[in-house]
């Protein structure tokens, strides 16, 4: 048998394999092609198609879409009613983010510092379990909890604290006829639903804070408060920011919770849904979606500078 005979006997498959071996660049190209096509066409392509739509406008008389480049639709966004929607959504997203950071931090701290073995498993289960059940079921359940004749009001009545709820509900903006038809209710449900997304990154970043740094701080005479603000919090900040990316963007994009719990005042997602529907006002719907993209862009840039992506 001569050496020249061996490649011939390996047939087409062999030839192909040899060819790829000789052209490693081609191998890489072909392997990356499907994901790049997916990212480029399906993902970015549809995003740009959407952006393009926002530069069209709707003809006021016929209701037909006028496919000429204009900024008129963006000007619509600055009408008071639409500006309200954007401000309302961003404020809610910011409050939910701060709220979940405050609630999540002690939980994550406990899990990272004190929970061991079985307790750690219970912690993970407790945080993850709500994520396994249907989002809709949880939101509907909250509607029942917050209802005027729901369990929360019942508990407050038993504790003779009804006056407290009433006083809160009498406040402007956050108040309302009952918790389930107020912005407070919407906030509580957002807080509950997105909390796990805040706990897990904070816990991950706290685990990386060496315990001896805390001890060193107290050895040097720092009060617990000083230790927290000067040592623990700065080191855990990337985790908080990573969690805030989730809670902020998820709140900003959600259109189901404010539909079930709250005052019926629209959030960005609901406005998009309403405009793209029977109304056929795709340009305005597209312009509305550009708002959270921009806001998130600025936010992510800020978070990256603070090192949030190291904690993911």
């Amino acid at each position, binding site marked *: 048998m001569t050496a020249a005979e061996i490649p011939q006997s390996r047939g087409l498959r062999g030839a192909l394999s040899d060819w790829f071996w000789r052209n490693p660049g081609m191998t890489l190209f072909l392997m990356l092609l499907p994901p790049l096509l997916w990212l480029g066409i399906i993902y970015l392509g549809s995003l740009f198609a959407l952006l393009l739509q926002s530069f069209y406008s709707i003809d006021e008389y*016929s209701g037909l879409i006028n496919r000429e480049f204009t900024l008129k639709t963006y000007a619509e966004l600055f009408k008071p009613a639409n500006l309200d929607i954007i401000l309302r959504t961003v404020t809610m997203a910011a409050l939910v983010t701060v709220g979940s950071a405050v609630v999540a931090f002690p939980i994550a701290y406990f899990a990272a510092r004190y929970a061991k073995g079985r307790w750690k498993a219970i912690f993970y289960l407790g945080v993850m379990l709500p994520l396994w059940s249907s989002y809709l079921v949880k939101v509907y359940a909250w509607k029942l909890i917050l209802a005027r004749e729901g369990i929360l009001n019942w508990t407050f009545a038993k504790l003779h604290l009804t006056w407290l709820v009433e006083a809160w509900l009498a406040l402007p903006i956050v108040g309302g006829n009952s918790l389930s038809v107020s912005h407070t209710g919407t906030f509580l449900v957002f807080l509950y639903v997105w909390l796990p997304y805040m706990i897990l990154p904070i816990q991950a970043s706290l685990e990386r804070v060496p315990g001896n740094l805390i001890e060193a701080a107290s050895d040097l005479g720092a009060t617990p408060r000083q230790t927290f603000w000067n040592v623990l919090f700065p080191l855990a900040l990337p985790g908080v920011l990573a969690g805030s990316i989730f809670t902020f963007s998820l709140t900003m994009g959600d259109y189901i919770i404010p539909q079930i719990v709250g005052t019926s005042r629209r959030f960005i997602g609901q406005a998009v849904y309403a405009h793209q529907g029977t*109304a056929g006002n795709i340009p305005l719907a597209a312009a509305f979606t550009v708002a959270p993209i921009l806001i998130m862009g600025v936010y992510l840039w800020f978070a990256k500078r603070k090192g949030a992506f190291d904690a993911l």
Partner: protein
Amino acid sequence: MIRSLATCAVLALSAGFMSAAYAQAMKTELGEGEGRLNVVAWAGFLERGETDPKFDWVTGFEEATGCKVSVKTANTSDEMVALMNEGGFDLVTASGDASRRLIAGKRVQPINIDLIPSWSKLDDRLKDAPWHTVEGAHYGVPYVWGPNVLAYNTEVFPEAPTSWSVVFEEQDLPDGKSNVGRVQAYDGPIHIADAAQYLMFHKPELGIVSPYELNDEQYAAALDLLRGQRKLASRYWHDAFIQIDDFKNEGVVASGSWPFQVNLLKGDGAPIASTFPQEGVTGWADTSMMHAEAANPNCAYKWLEHSLNSNLQSDLSLWFGANPSVPAACTDGSGMLTAEVCAQNGSNDFEKVRFWQTPITQCASQGECVPYYRWVSDYIAVIGGR
């Protein structure tokens, strides 16, 4: 610009010819069934006994005709229009806000009513309804219809309220407490029509002819009324089950509603009843329409005939809290529907119902009307408190 106008004119003309061609292509005789039928429908409109074995009007049809029915449920009128634009379906159960769009978009074909023997059994008032009849051509067969009634709490209202004013204007209810925070309104721009209907009665000087055809002045008056309503309503409803819960747990005592919720609440023992106030009510009427390029036209015609079957109309109306398009279904005992349930669902009040239509710029009653897309953005503003 002038050239593009000319192109438009040519296009419009050719579209006109094409619709004439479609009209001629209408089927004149039926052949054998094709063995299958694809339908886009609202949830609950085509039941085959899977939800509740008592409610089944599909398997019998399949056995009798050999047409295997597959149903694609849609949640909104927009989804229905989108699915029909995609194609691959034979029939759609379209509401009044989708039917005219489907006709205008040439996605549905005219029906030869001579091929549907049961056509004669239809309620005469539905036969030429404007939401499926254009220039004398029928683009579908009426399926079922329902009113938007005023639901109220019988403990608060010992007697049924006679006017929609309980949900539109601040006032003390018969139990001595104000209606602020205790009423609801529908969370859809089409609710502007309810306000317009109220104004039709109380402010005749506005000259509103149809609540779906409003000029700028009439429209502004309706929005003003709705801004007042925002102060009364703590929440707007759009999900039937959320509204049911609000009547039970949220202290809501009056709201526009559907017989569907009222029947479920009554069945649950809640003190809720419904009424047709003096101003009249709005309502929906659905039509089975056939795709312009239906692949299974014979099965589609067989289903259209079957859809007027008294037993189907009876069971479907009971199931959905709707009203049959074949009036006999209420009384002939062919299904589970009784005259009493029909009366509850509003069958006898057809004349009081102004059925949903999509507001368009070129309206019939006056020069120019406010189109639907403005209803959407303005209703969002009203709910937002603007």
